């Protein structure tokens, strides 16, 4: 048995693919590549794939992290080469590295996510709005019918330079741990901006001990 950690990009061509579909896409990519994934035991066999954090539909990302298990030990170089030939357009592998079988699950060590938000419609006084948001005691949003305060999960917010189309951009660092988390579109909603008019890009995931995926 071998456990590997893959760092990949989800780019614009496949940004409209949801988490469950992405899972199946990976499964089929491995099968095309001829890489024998280990399967879970039980009534219905599932390949052992573990994605650190579900990326919402519509989002792109520079660094998504996923662990997978193989039944046999293979040279990493061969795994990488085989995968490269089988990837669908829009999925890009940054890196594959071996992980101890006993290492803790990705979800259990995930702390937060850094995002870049691009506004496709102009927001007057964005600077003031960001400042006001930082100073608010609570940021109440509605999630699945419940009011919750996401202020504690907003670790950091700041303006970014304009993009190449002169769109305003924001940097957000949000909590992504299992029970305490916020999504960037929730933050955007809190400033009365329609998230459908924004592009969301995950820059990186932050794990315990301050490990960032881009490092």
């Amino acid at each position, binding site marked *: 048995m071998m456990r590997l950690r893959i760092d990949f990009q989800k780019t614009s061509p496949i940004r409209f693919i949801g988490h469950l*579909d992405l899972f199946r896409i990976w*499964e*089929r990519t491995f099968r*095309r590549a001829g890489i024998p994934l280990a399967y879970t035991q039980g009534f219905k*066999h599932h390949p052992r794939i573990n994605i650190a954090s579900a990326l919402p539909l*519509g989002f792109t990302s520079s660094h998504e992290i996923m662990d997978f298990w193989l039944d046999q030990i293979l040279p990493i170089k061969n795994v990488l080469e085989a995968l490269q030939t089988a990837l669908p357009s829009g999925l890009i592998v940054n890196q594959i590295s071996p992980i101890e079988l006993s290492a803790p699950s990705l979800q259990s060590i995930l702390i937060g996510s850094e995002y870049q938000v691009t506004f496709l419609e102009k927001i007057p006084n964005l600077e003031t709005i960001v400042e006001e948001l930082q100073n608010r005691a609570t940021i109440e949003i509605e999630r699945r019918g419940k009011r919750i305060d996401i202020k504690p999960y907003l670790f950091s917010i700041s303006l970014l330079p304009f993009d190449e189309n002169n769109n305003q951009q924001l940097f957000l660092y949000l909590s992504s741990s299992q029970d305490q988390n916020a999504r960037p579109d929730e933050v955007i909603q809190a400033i009365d901006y329609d998230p459908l008019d924004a592009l969301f890009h995950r820059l990186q995931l932050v794990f315990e001990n301050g490990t960032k995926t881009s490092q």
Partner: protein
Amino acid sequence: MNDSPVEINNILQRILPRVQKPARYTGGEYNQILKDWNNTKLHVCLIFPDIYDLGMSNLGLMILYDLINQRSDALAERAFSPWLDLEDQLRKFNLPLYALESKHPLKAFDILGFTLPYESLYTNALNILDLAQIPLFSDQRALQHPLIIAGGHSTFNPEPMHSFIDAFVIGEGEEVIQEILDVYSDWKIETLPFENIPPSISKSKRNELLKHLAKLDGVYVPKFYQEHYNLDNTFSRLEPIEPGAPETIRKRIVGKLPPPPTRLIVPYIETVHDRIPLEIMRGCTRGCRFCQAGMITRPVRERGVDEIIQSIQQSIKNTGYEEVGLLSLSSSDYTNILDLIHSFNQHFSLDTLSVSLPSLRIDSLSVELMQSLGLARRNGFTLAPEAATERMRRIINKPVTTDQVLETADAIYSNGWSTIKLYFMIGHPLETLEDVQAIVDLSKMVIRIGRKHIGNRAQVNVGVSTFIPKPHTPFQWTVCDTEEQIQIKLSMLKDQLRGKGIKLTWNPPDATFLEAWLSRGDRRMANVIYQAWQLGAKFDAWNDQRNLSAWQQAFEINQIEPDFYTHRQRAMDEAFPWDHISIGVRKKYLLQDYQWSLSGKTRQDCRDHCFACGILPKYNSLRKQNPGNAWKCPDVISREKSNQHDAIAN
């Protein structure tokens, strides 16, 4: 104008976040073929007029996509119906419907090919033309518009759609699509550049193309024919009005099934049949009298076991799929079915590749087959007796005994399955309420067998559809049940097939009638379809979308009585609006079969005994080019002997 791929894509990026399942509309899937538009001469867009999730499981579309893209001078892309939410957005932004691969608008293509496997797609086809900003009526289109062609099972009666489609392809498309592209290519070279053609002769130039197409075997150009009716409004005849337009259009078939496509597009999102489709056999020799597919897909042609296994191996490598569907109209009738299953088990591990084997016969062999394939027992085991009394099954020529049904049910439950799905039809010719009651009784007998083996875990799911007398079948002379009859029969079933372990599902009568009108209609139906679409009818195959009142209104506007098509027994010598379409099976043979049915006389499987349906003499040369076992018809016999057979059959 929002007509360039770049502009279309830019607007899409803004509207796709606002619709459900946006990945339906992005293309880019693994194995998609995107060719260089400007360096490719012929641009074809293949269209399934319902949503992506359904259309991507259409095998015909995939076969043609593969074949056209193999040509160096042509490209094929795909388009599907947008769901209501995207349609609203497209109309709001005046964005023309586009093809998934290159995002070119459909109106920029040379040829649009619709696949119409069933009739309830017709209004969607109109809606797609409208969304593509292309005139709906064939006679309103000129040189700058794409050629609109259509094929698929429902086009074996093309007449209801004759106003909208420039040319129909009758039968199997694998070879004739190449001929159509060749003809189009020659015509295009001759006619280019289109911009230099004065508008006054634009339509006549387009007519030239249609004249060339009408000469192709299996291609029907409706505008070259004039229909005639009798004083009582019944159909009289269709008259060719263009020199060279044939009196009858004989369906195309391939002598040998070409290699199946193995580089299948792998959808990003789940589709209805999310698996490798592998056609093991085409056609069916059983001769069930209600079954249009069984009549129009004759003769039976099989693929060899080795070819099937190799194609599956290749497909898994190319796609990464975890499931394969072994497709045919009657899996148990595949000659080497045991060899196939044996070889399948040798080559594949069922832990990582699951398989589905639909359309199994009602016998213990089917249970053994399913077992040796380790088929997922949780999915249940499907049996389709179609009728519940032996009398009725003789009438429809599905001569299975009730004992066979019960014995098979016994084998299924005792081998670990807990659910049996039973499929029946109501409304068969000569059906009485006793025959309907027998559906209840038989279903209850089956559940009792289940309880004997596994107690209360036993489940029977009864699916009931309503018979439609389809064109080109022995039952084309007969009638549909009236709504009242259907309701009486359905309520008998609903009242009694309930309670623990029994689930009943049925087709709503409005779906039945719509399909019946559209499948049996003549040219006068075209305006009804158009009106219904204008009144908002679309997605007619969807129970929650069908708008029957739009259809009723459309009939009224056109002063057509829908019952004329569905509730009128046809005289034995009545001409049908689809008589100019030849399926290779003689009308006399179908009539004889109808008469046999009325006297309860069955016709055995024609693999064992040729009944001279007409296929062999009509496709004599094709059969000679493909001798041996691939065809399941006996070898061609001399005319003299064939006449003797006729005499025996008569």
